[in-house]
């Protein structure tokens, strides 16, 4: 019996008491970024931009994404407004340090054009989301620190501060509230270069679709400019077996 107890203690020491151990900020963000989301996903994204006068502009996009292991491919087909209809955008995001590959197809030019992925700090279609906010930020791009645990909106959350390793990054820091039960983000604050609060991302709705947690409604508010962008996902389909050929020049030009 004594020997058995000893073995248990040794095993627990060796695994670092993994079941009860306090996760580090990096581990929490890692679990959040690498939360299972399915092999592929299709959805219709509706983005509503509301300015401080309450005037709204709406953009609709049909998007497809697929995880190929070492690369995640995403293709978007713009449906509204009319002046961007049939424009498509494709992004290949790599697990390695390689920067993303991006292409855009403008129907007026009838040509797929490779564009620089350097502009990740640019705002996407005039919204409050930068390309970086929407994409997969790499885990090691920031230093992550667990600040505390607290309950918001009835959810027990980790609160993690992330500071970019790139001094020129547009945010001095971000603070993320992550649901302890499923590692889905609940809220995120973005601070500008002067360390003033710039934007707040609020996750409004999370649905379990095909066994995976999907954020289907979120809102980004620029607190300095009082401008809001709301994103809703509809017609979400997961693991529908999207063909690899979907992510090609052929589909960008043909459209959906």
């Amino acid at each position, binding site marked *: 019996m004594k020997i058995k107890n000893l073995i248990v203690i040794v095993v627990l020491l060796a695994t670092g008491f993994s079941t009860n151990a306090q996760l580090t900020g990096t581990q929490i963000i890692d679990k959040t970024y690498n939360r299972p989301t399915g092999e592929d996903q299709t959805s219709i994204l509706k983005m509503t931009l509301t300015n401080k006068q309450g005037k709204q502009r709406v953009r609709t996009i049909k998007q497809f994404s697929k995880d190929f292991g070492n690369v995640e491919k995403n293709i978007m087909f713009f449906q509204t*407004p*009319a002046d961007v209809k049939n424009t498509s955008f494709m992004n290949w995001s790599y697990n390695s340090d390689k*920067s993303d590959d991006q292409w855009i197809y403008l129907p007026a030019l009838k040509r797929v054009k*490779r564009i620089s992925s350097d502009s990740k700090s640019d705002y996407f279609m005039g919204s409050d989301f930068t390309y970086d906010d929407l994409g997969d930020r790499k885990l090691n791009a920031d230093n992550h620190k667990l600040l505390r645990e607290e309950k918001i909106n009835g959810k027990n959350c980790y609160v993690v501060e992330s500071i970019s390793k790139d001094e020129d990054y547009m945010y001095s820091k971000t603070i993320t509230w992550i649901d302890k039960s499923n590692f889905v983000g609940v809220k995120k604050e973005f601070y500008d270069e002067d360390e003033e609060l710039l934007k707040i991302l609020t996750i409004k709705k999370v649905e379990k679709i095909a066994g995976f947690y999907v954020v289907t409604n979120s809102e980004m508010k620029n607190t300095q400019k009082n401008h809001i962008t709301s994103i809703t996902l509809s017609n979400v389909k997961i693991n529908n077996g999207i063909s690899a050929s979907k992510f090609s020049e052929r589909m960008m030009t043909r459209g959906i």
Partner: protein
Amino acid sequence: MKNKIIIIIATLFVGSFAKAQKLETSGFVRTYEGVTYDNGNFVITQQTLNLNFEKRGEKVAFKANPMLYMYKADSLSLNLREVYMDMYFKNFDLRIGKQQIVWGKADGVFITDVVSPLNLSEFLLPDFDEIRTGVIATKLDYYIGNSTIEAIWIPQFTPTVRPDANSIWYIQPEFPAPTTFDWRQSEINPSLKNSEMFLKWSAMTSKVDFELMGGYTWDDNPSMHVQKHFGMDTSTTPPSPILTGLSITPKHHRLSLVGGSFSTEIKGVIFRGEAAYYNGKYFQTEDPTAEGALIQKDYLNYVAGIDFNLGNVKLSTQFIQKYIIDYNSLMLENEFHNTATFMSRYDMMRETLHLELFSYIGLSDQDALIRPKITYDFDDGFSILLGGNVFVGERDGQFGQFQDNSMIYTKLKYNF
């Protein structure tokens, strides 16, 4: 008047057909006015209705794109810019009909992008989608992984559209003697023998995108075969021969070309290149022994360019060179002809206000076309544009020759 009625009936018919068939309908209405700032003449008064009718299925699709232009209050013209049908198969697609085909990686210059000829009736000013004319063609795209083999067969040759003689973009050539033109030989009869063929292999990869192409085509611009007529000047002693007239016969000639292009990203900068080797082009020469005052030479045309961001400003620049191989000093054209382009763009006010500057800079001719513009998206799909087309530099240059046409212009466009 008859034409106008036909166009209106056709538009109404297509409109109701679209409704009945649940076609996807889109397009734009645009009003476009330009005034020269030298003399205040309204040199552009153009109203446009662009309609796109599309229906897309799993296996087939079609598109028809009629464009109605009204240049003056009573002048209406209909242009079927594209009308084609698509068939989709597992590994290949087939497109048959009038279509615009765009190749290459260069912006605003046409190196390997020679399948669809240009409409230069308003010089290089129209938007790039309107500057090309459609060709009646069969296009086959065969897909292997990330690469595509594209084969094009064009049974009917379409030449470059030139400005009318009464257009401000028409430059009256100067001849040393009375000249007559015989345009009868400039027509190319549609036949199997006179077909044009193009082949391209392209790939889009994580490292580089590239295209390799070849074409057996017609020179879109006719060569001017010049016949000189001489008489005797009896006022001199002894009498001497004198040029009394010129007979010019414009003819299109066969042209072959091979070329390629690439684009890749290195540390946030896009590097682009495109080159083509043209075989058998006819050039004007002053060599008195040359038949028709023409000499056949090969030439190389290439462009190298970069796109990059400086803060929130998007910048792009290109260097273009045309080099005539085995040059002869009696040729009228220079051995090298160098041009550059520069583009900068800044989007502000949540991408509703766009500032853009695009310029062609004639390095050889020491002239330029400078095109600043401001576009404001007044509402979704509705934009207001204020721009300028400024021609500067030597009057014998490609751009400088249009100095008197420098203008400011506005475009109001409603997309639907």
